[in-house]
């Protein structure tokens, strides 16, 4: 008796029903996986500028610890003080302001980075063209594609017309893109003088110690690149956390209903066999194993289907909505797998009760 995989055979005895059940649970898990993958993708994209920056330390206005949706104003006088501190290899200002790239064909929200030409803060690498000269802008190749722009074309930004001098990559996300202009151009366009948004600093030695030294000397907020990047990710996580909780709960509840339905239907159609097993002396544990193995087969297959669909959707979204990166990390998969096992256990409850209550005599009454 022990070697016969009754649960698996029961589940797949009617393949169409098994496929419907697995697809139902798979679709519910797909919802949870997709949301996690979209948030992961957004987090990776939103920190791209920071993660690829040569800066060891990011300095901002006191109380400011990230860039996305933040406003920071630091007096340029602090730049001189920071450069004079021991352990500072270099320090450069950047202006960072929200605006939008606009053409006759469309608009894209953009953070404009104003940097000093030849110094850190600009695009790390260009896929085409060159760094911006006066009145010129470097934009991301993905947004260039969606707006139908190429090097040498004109684009509206900061209420002015700019010529595109080059294309960068990997800086367009779900919500916005990044554009680079000269520091002086951005300051003039926004009528700013004597301030910068952030100061980027290179460290001689330990970046954490330098960050601490800068804060102590200036009162400004100074974080290492890793800390700054983590703060940026925390913003995305905090903004999406509650919506994710609601969607995840809905996804798991739907999954629970489908798995309960699948197991219940499969159990009901094989109730006579359960009676035979009982009549032959099968203990409740053996019957429970049969139901639980069906549950595990269902969620296992459903998880595999959901993973496959997530990868397929990532490809489709990549082609149709290029700025929605979908990144599935092992942590998310592990969390969804754990959730699926809980679903399997809960979904098995009603069929278990039904099987345990089967009277072996029913076999002979039919």
């Amino acid at each position, binding site marked *: 008796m022990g070697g016969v995989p009754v649960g698996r055979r029961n589940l797949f005895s*009617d393949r*169409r*029903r098994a496929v*419907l059940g697995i697809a*139902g649970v798979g*679709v519910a898990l*797909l*919802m949870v996986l*997709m*949301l996690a993958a979209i948030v992961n993708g957004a987090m990776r994209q939103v920190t791209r500028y920071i993660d690829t920056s040569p800066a060891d330390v990011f300095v901002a*206005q*006191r*109380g*400011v*610890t*990230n860039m996305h*949706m*933040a*406003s*920071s*104003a630091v*007096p340029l006088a602090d730049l001189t003080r920071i450069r004079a501190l021991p352990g500072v290899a270099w320090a450069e200002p950047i202006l960072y302001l*929200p*605006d*939008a790239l*606009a053409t006759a064909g469309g*608009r894209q*929200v953009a953070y404009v980075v104003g940097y000093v030409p030849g110094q850190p803060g600009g695009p790390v690498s260009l896929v085409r063209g060159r760094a911006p000269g006066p009145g010129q802008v470097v934009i991301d190749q993905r947004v260039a594609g969606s707006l139908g722009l190429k090097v040498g074309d004109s684009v509206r930004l900061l*209420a002015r017309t700019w010529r595109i001098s080059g294309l960068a990559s990997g800086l367009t996300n*779900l*919500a916005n893109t990044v554009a680079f202009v000269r520091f002086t151009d951005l300051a003039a366009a*926004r*009528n*700013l003088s*004597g301030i910068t948004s952030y100061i980027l600093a290179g460290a001689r030695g330990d970046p954490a110690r330098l960050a601490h030294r800068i804060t102590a000397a200036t009162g400004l907020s100074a974080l290492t690149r890793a800390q700054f990047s983590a*703060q940026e990710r925390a*913003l995305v996580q*905090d*903004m*999406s956390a*509650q*919506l994710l909780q*609601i*969607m995840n709960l*809905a996804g798991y*509840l*739907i999954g629970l*209903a*489908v798995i*309960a*339905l*699948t197991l*219940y*239907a499969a159990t*009901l*159609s094989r109730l006579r066999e359960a009676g035979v097993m009982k009549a032959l002396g099968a203990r409740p544990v053996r019957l429970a194993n049969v139901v639980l193995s069906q549950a595990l087969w269902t969620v296992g297959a459903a998880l595999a289907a959901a993973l496959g669909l997530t990868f397929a*959707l990532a490809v489709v979204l990549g082609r149709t*909505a290029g700025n*929605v990166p979908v990144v599935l990390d092992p942590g998310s998969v592990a969390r969804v797998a754990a959730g699926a096992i809980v679903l399997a256990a809960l979904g098995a409850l*009603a069929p278990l009760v039904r099987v345990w209550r089967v009277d072996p005599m029913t076999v002979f009454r039919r």
Partner: protein
Amino acid sequence: MGTQVPVAWRNILAERRRLAIAVLGAGLAVALILLLEGLWSGLLTQISAYPDHVRATFFVRQPGAKTLSEGVVPVSAAGRVRAVPGVAAAGPVLTRWVVLDLHGRKQVVTVVGFTPGSLGGPWALAAGRTVGADGEVVIDRTLAAEHAITLGGTLGVTGRSFRVVGLSSGTRSFMGTGYLFMSLHSAQAMFGAENTATFVLVRAAGPVAVRAAIAGRTGLSVASPDLVAAAEQNLYAGIMGKIFNLMVVIAFAAGTLIVALTVYSAISDRLGEYGIAKALGARRGRLFRIVAGQTTVLSGLALIAGLLLYLGGSRLITALWPQFQIELTFRALGVVTVAALLMGMLAALVPTRRVARLDPASVYRR
């Protein structure tokens, strides 16, 4: 086999526990579609809350600016606007995103700097008073409650301390962000934006003539609040719309699979009866009507269950997370009704194939 026998109804009611799980599962999918549609409607309403409620006739902005946070104008522009005949009031407003760190969580707010006593301040106060001087803020009441911020207490914003003098209502926005009102001088000092604003709000009589006169005198663009609201909604709809639509499609697929699984299981359990019906001369059309009748009954029950689950779920969500506004619109009701009907029709496909392929002679083999 007369047509007066409600076979579909009897078949679906034969196993009531399975029916209950199915109605609950498909109802959850319907409720999720309603919830997504409701959240989306609420989101759009929240996004345009400022232009919708600020009681201005025009937004005077930098040419090319579309959304609320774009552009920069000199504060002096407000004086030139006031001099236009027909202008009753004009006030410069500076808006910027700021990320607050509250109890270890990042909270994005839109700082609105306005001239106390002029246009641009909070439109509905739940407690306290509006901003009367520098160093004072009015914060959304739900945001304040989430973070235990009380009237008369202090709030740190980018390293500066403000006294909370009022709690506003209806001032939450996109993805849980909220408005934070302060004086124009406070905002300018905080952002290092002396003598500049983002736009000038105007209240005027005889709007058509006044609009042309303002544009002519200042060289700035003049937009109605409706236009600003539409631009805000378009911007965020573009960002989040794809994700919401994807989730609606997934919820629809889950609901369809649940209905299909239930009816398929009900038919499989009574395959003998269908064989007899075929042997007695029931045509395909009659059998399809029986299957479609079951899926339609189930979809109808799921629609009712979904509405009830939605009513309970939406109340729970807004009680737990008051930053979410959920609005049930006629459009949303129409969408789910059509979705439920479609679910029923699509779900009939697999069970119909099963019945259509059934050999009447199989009845005698059982």
